[in-house]
């Protein structure tokens, strides 16, 4: 089997309402969707969501990197069969690591291509991604995420989540008045599991002070309290913090994972497909974390379409144990999604496993083209 053509679309799908955290506010999605076609005419779809403030990748970089570096390499080789879980890393190994100045890791580019090729190969074999990521649970339970906003806005979102029945909630903090905003959520959801995410907004002193103030509200994890960088302050904070710490921006590569483990700098890893470079790398990082006694969250990028949501569903279903899962917001956030099926979670954040070949969704190319702001095609070889 060979991939004979690849097309990358930069997508901007409007949000139903803006989503903000300490580093960014966005009102539409910002992702790149890749479509590959093999020599039998079978297509596969993948997606990456570049975040300049996390990996250094931008949408323009992704389009260029995919068109000039990654896709041509894949178009030139015979792809290995994908039958069993041990085959998963084979596709990752074919995608070159090409260091680029200013880019920490081309994770989103790699993820988009890896998922597209895997989807294509599995579609051709009429086999589900579950063959490579065997599920260990019958449903995936998602957390709700509350955007950074005023105390009233945060309380309003908490009331929505209460009615939707979500019982694991993450609140974006690091925007001032954090304790009062988290208290507003706790007032609405007295029994929910609460986590907060500072997106690296705090200094070590601010972090410790704020965490100590938040702790009495019953917080299960503090995500990325400090900016990515020197791990020593994070380790020092962890030793003093009354609340377990989770890393996100600090965890992009396997090398990051090893460094964090060695420094005993955190209690949780937030593993995200687009950030960490695809399914194979996420599996490897998650496995390493669990071996080291670190708990795992399968996270997501804000505004993911059904493609990353489906990939995330399969990944989350296969990790055991799994502390938390995020994503699959679908049309709760996007004004329209790009698959025929609804992938978003339902009441209590529950979502069924996806059946069917490949990712288990049917991407509607007409919709992809409608939301595409730029398209690059790697011609057939």
């Amino acid at each position, binding site marked *: 089997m060979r991939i004979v053509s690849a097309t990358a679309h930069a997508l901007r799908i409007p949000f139903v309402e803006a989503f903000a955290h300490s580093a960014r506010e966005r009102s539409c999605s910002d992702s790149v969707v890749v479509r590959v076609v093999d020599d039998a005419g079978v297509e596969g779809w993948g997606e990456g969501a570049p975040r300049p403030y996390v990996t250094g990748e931008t949408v323009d970089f992704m389009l260029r990197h995919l068109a000039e570096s990654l896709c041509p390499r894949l178009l030139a080789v015979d792809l290995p069969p994908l039958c069993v879980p041990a085959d998963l890393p084979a596709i990752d190994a074919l995608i070159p690591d090409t260091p680029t100045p200013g880019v920490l890791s081309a994770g989103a580019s790699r993820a988009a291509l890896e998922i597209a090729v895997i989807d294509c190969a599995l579609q051709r074999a009429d086999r589900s991604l579950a063959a490579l990521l065997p599920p260990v649970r019958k449903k995936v339970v998602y957390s709700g995420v509350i955007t950074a906003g005023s105390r009233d806005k945060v309380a309003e979102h908490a009331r*929505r989540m209460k009615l*939707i029945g979500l019982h694991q909630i993450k609140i974006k903090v690091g925007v001032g008045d954090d304790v009062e905003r988290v208290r507003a959520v706790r007032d609405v959801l007295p029994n929910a599991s609460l986590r907060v995410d500072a997106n690296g907004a705090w200094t070590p002193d601010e972090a410790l002070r704020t965490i100590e103030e938040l702790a009495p509200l019953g917080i299960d994890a503090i995500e990325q309290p400090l900016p990515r960088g020197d791990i020593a302050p994070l380790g020092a904070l962890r030793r003093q913090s009354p609340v377990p710490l989770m890393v996100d921006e600090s965890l992009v590569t396997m090398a990051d994972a090893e460094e964090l483990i060695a420094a005993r700098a955190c209690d949780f890893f937030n593993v995200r497909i687009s950030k960490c470079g695809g399914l194979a790398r996420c599996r490897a990082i998650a496995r390493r974390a669990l071996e080291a006694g670190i708990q795992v969250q399968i996270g997501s990028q804000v505004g993911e379409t059904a493609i990353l949501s489906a990939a995330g569903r399969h990944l989350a279903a296969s990790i055991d144990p799994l502390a938390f899962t995020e994503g699959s917001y679908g049309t*709760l956030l996007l*004004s329209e999604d790009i698959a025929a099926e*609804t992938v978003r979670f339902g*009441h209590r954040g529950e979502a069924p496993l996806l059946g069917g070949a490949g990712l288990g969704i049917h991407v509607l190319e007409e919709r992809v083209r409608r939301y595409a702001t730029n398209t690059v095609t790697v011609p057939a070889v």
Partner: protein
Amino acid sequence: MSMRKRIEGLFDRQVADLVARQEFQDLENGRASPQDYDRFVASVVRTHLKSPQLVAFLYALAPPRAADHLRHNLLEELGIEDEAGVAHPSLLEDLARGSGLGARLAEFEALAASDIRKFAGDPLLYGTLRDVGLAALCEVTAFEFMLSRLASRFARALASRRGLSAASLRWFTHHSEVDVRHAEQGLDDLVEYIRAYEFSEEDAWTIVDMTLRENVFVKRYFGEMSVRL
């Protein structure tokens, strides 16, 4: 402020937002292309073709004091409220045929059926039929409210700018200003539903607000859920 006033205020804002949209203004001032008029007609047909089924669902959940009105609505949708009644889906089919879109009715029917399938098959956000019913009743009442204020303007635009006959515009004239009383009754029903099912004001408002956080009129007539011809 009473719940009724709050909901009416939200409906008013959504109607004003629709009227302010360029697409609406272009329909009225004639700057819309023939394809735009056709697309609007097709979207209206898709949106409302299955209304009897939705109203039947709401009737099944109706509290006693709102049941009479919802039953009347259902009979009216089905065209059996009196001897002169015509089923509303038939009026929508007349609208499509009068616009020269008769050949595409099967396509619109399939889209409307797929909307019902999604409504029924997508994972439920809420945990009870009571909550799902409030969201559905809210959206149906919002459309009734909007049509009572704008249906005649739509009809005038389609007649004067697209040359549609009075016969083909009966669905709009049926929902025009004379229906203001219906819309008022719809608001009363919504408030009665909230009271009868013992919603807290906060929970009721949260569901109403979530249901209408997007402008459903724009979304269905001109936006993501409109028909692309």
